[in-house]
């Protein structure tokens, strides 16, 4: 029991007194609206008290950091040993352009790198492919071959800096390039650290960057987990992502539930397909959440996520190593909460969202720039976003103590409620036969579409407010500087690719692509063959075309 009987005996009397006062007050001044709810439409009560968390057990449900169920965090020292990693997502134009931005960020005090690739790279196409016209370098960096990649990491010590790569269908190829680049720097694979996003399930659910159908996509992911476990022990091979689910319009509970259920699907596949012991790989699984504008809902979501995952890993998968029970996660503030109108307000939104992520105990954070509704961020805007994190870390005092909101009637109650609702979804998806089966039915996709449409309608009616958009609008455009990616990047990149293709050993390329194909056909691990192929300067698309050929292509079912 969390409260003594004395407290619980006093509560009803005090509560009744307060309720009577509320009734009187409302008669004088009615509430501004009837229903008060989170941005996800979860109803919130006027007050929370001991009665809302009376069934909680401190040891079982809350405890201290580093203690099961890890509600309060994995690290016993909190942020005192080190702050979260300041990791700004960056990538644009050519590898050279992005390398320059990376060096700027490191110079400004950023502590980890994070790569944004352009759409052709994300989808496994080379620059110049008919599918890729007009997209080169537009919303990330264009990478076709190892030559580009070497330019990307030029001057970055791969044994010291960790790098996250937001890459999904071609994750094997980009990770192979990273391994090959480390090799060039003389850094052994055991020394490199970083993350590949490599989470295909959320692509089918939300982000829609897909190449092959779900089943072979998950097979390729299990290949990377196996390879990492054997050879690259400091690498996070999957970043199980709720971010994109949320951006696609889900509620916070849906983000929580679908992300964790995706995690269950991956763990299941690695155990069944590869026969690995759960504790050999589970500590390298990482997560990625969105921090949206509803402050407490986000904090509670992150706290609930840790408690659900530790329970799943211990009870469902029988993991014994406490590190397998830990949920480690990166957070990004919500792009979809930003507005094109009055863009300077976005600095405020991002600061509040970042603060929620820190109070939720994130291990790593990206803060969006004020201009990202318009374009890739300009240097000045990125600097403000990075400074926002530094202000939270070093000025606000938020990092002084661990999980400062624990024990709050409201926060604990909302954490419990979100956890319960997430379990309902997880059980529902279990009953459907797992996440792949649920995706094939369109279940998570349509749940999100419903939530997104409902929210949009609430904005239209004014029931939900976006300042500067449907309330306090000025009708005037705030002109802000916009970063433009020159269309010439595309022609220059096509030239670079041609030059690489001219100079490489065509026979070696063909031989190594054949080896990738054989591995696919035999169900073997593709990773060693991918590394060989990229070293021989096979292009991203050439390797991905092998996957398309063997596994087939996935078409968007176009549900709405």
């Amino acid at each position, binding site marked *: 029991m969390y409260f003594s009987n004395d407290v619980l005996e006093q509560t009803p009397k005090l509560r009744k007194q307060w309720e009577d006062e509320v009734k009187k007050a409302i008669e004088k001044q009615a509430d501004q609206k009837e229903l008060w709810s989170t941005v996800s439409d979860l109803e919130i009560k006027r007050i929370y008290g001991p009665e809302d968390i009376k069934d909680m057990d401190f040891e079982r449900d809350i405890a201290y950091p580093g203690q099961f169920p890890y509600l309060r965090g994995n690290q016993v020292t909190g942020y005192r040993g080190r702050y979260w990693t300041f990791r700004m997502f960056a990538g644009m134009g050519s590898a050279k352009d992005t390398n320059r931005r990376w060096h700027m960020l490191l110079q400004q005090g950023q502590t980890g790198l994070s790569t944004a690739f352009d759409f052709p790279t994300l989808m496994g*196409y080379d620059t110049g492919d008919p599918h890729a016209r007009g997209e080169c370098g537009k919303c990330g960096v264009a990478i076709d071959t190892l030559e580009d990649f070497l330019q990307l990491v030029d001057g970055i010590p791969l044994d010291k800096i960790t790098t996250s790569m937001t890459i999904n269908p071609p994750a094997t190829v980009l990770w192979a390039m990273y391994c090959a680049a480390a090799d060039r720097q003389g850094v052994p694979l055991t020394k490199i650290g970083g993350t590949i996003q490599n989470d295909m399930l959320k692509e089918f659910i939300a982000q829609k960057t897909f190449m092959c159908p779900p089943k072979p996509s998950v097979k390729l992911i299990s290949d990377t987990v196996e390879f990492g476990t054997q050879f690259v022990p400091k690498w996070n091979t999957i970043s199980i992502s709720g971010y994109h689910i949320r951006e696609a319009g889900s509620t916070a509970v849906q983000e929580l539930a679908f992300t964790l259920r995706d995690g269950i699907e991956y763990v299941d596949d690695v155990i069944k397909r590869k026969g690995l012991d759960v504790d050999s790989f589970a500590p390298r699984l990482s997560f990625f959440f969105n921090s949206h504008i509803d402050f407490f809902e986000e904090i509670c979501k992150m706290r609930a996520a840790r408690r659900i995952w530790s329970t799943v890993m211990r009870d469902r998968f029988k993991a014994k190593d406490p590190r397998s029970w830990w949920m480690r996660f990166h957070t990004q503030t919500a792009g979809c909460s930003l507005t094109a109108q009055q863009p300077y307000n976005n600095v405020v939104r991002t600061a509040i969202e970042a603060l929620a992520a820190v109070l939720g105990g994130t291990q790593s954070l990206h803060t969006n720039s004020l201009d990202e509704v318009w374009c890739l961020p300009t240097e000045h805007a990125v600097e403000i976003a990075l400074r926002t994190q530094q202000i939270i870390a070093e000025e606000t005092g938020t990092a002084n103590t661990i999980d400062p909101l624990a024990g709050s009637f409201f926060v604990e109650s909302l954490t419990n409620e979100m956890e319960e609702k997430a379990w309902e979804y997880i059980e529902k998806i279990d009953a459907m036969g797992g996440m792949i089966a649920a995706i094939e039915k369109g279940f998570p996709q349509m749940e999100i579409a419903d939530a*997104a449409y409902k929210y949009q*309608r609430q904005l239209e009616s004014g029931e939900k407010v976006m300042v500067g958009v449907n309330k306090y609008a000025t009708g005037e455009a705030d002109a802000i500087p916009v970063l433009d990616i020159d269309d010439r990047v595309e022609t220059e990149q096509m030239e670079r690719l041609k030059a690489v293709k001219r100079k490489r050993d065509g026979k070696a390329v063909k031989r190594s692509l054949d080896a990738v194909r054989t591995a696919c056909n035999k169900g073997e691990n593709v990773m060693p063959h991918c590394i060989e192929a990229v070293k021989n300067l096979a292009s991203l698309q050439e390797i991905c075309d092998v996957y398309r050929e063997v596994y087939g292509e996935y078409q968007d079912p176009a549900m709405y």
Partner: protein
Amino acid sequence: MGERKLRIMVAKPGLDGHDRGARVLARCFRDAGFEVIYTGCHQTPEQIAASAIQEDVDVVGLSCLSGAHRYLFPRVVELLKEQEAADITVIGGGVIPDQDFQLLYDAGIKEIFTPGASLDSIVEWIRNNVKPS
């Protein structure tokens, strides 16, 4: 016999997967009484023009958030013209900076809607500017 329903194709050209806006609009157009065809993501301009003609639509609404609109939007209009379907109204939306508007208007995009545009304003524009043929 009542007037024929307005037929609209919501299309996602290029490799961009940000389909939240497109799908919300598809649903909104359906609720507004239009006949809606949604292409799904990752369509080439060639595929979009071909299906627009085959489906005999009155409007094509292009959605692009990747920054590739300067190539993709004009290309769709150009292909429709080449195939004698210039009567199809093409509108667009997404992450489109002000500085690109003129280029797109000049290329034949009739209207551009950017983040924050209300659903009602888009429906109203279509009702005022397009008559079912």
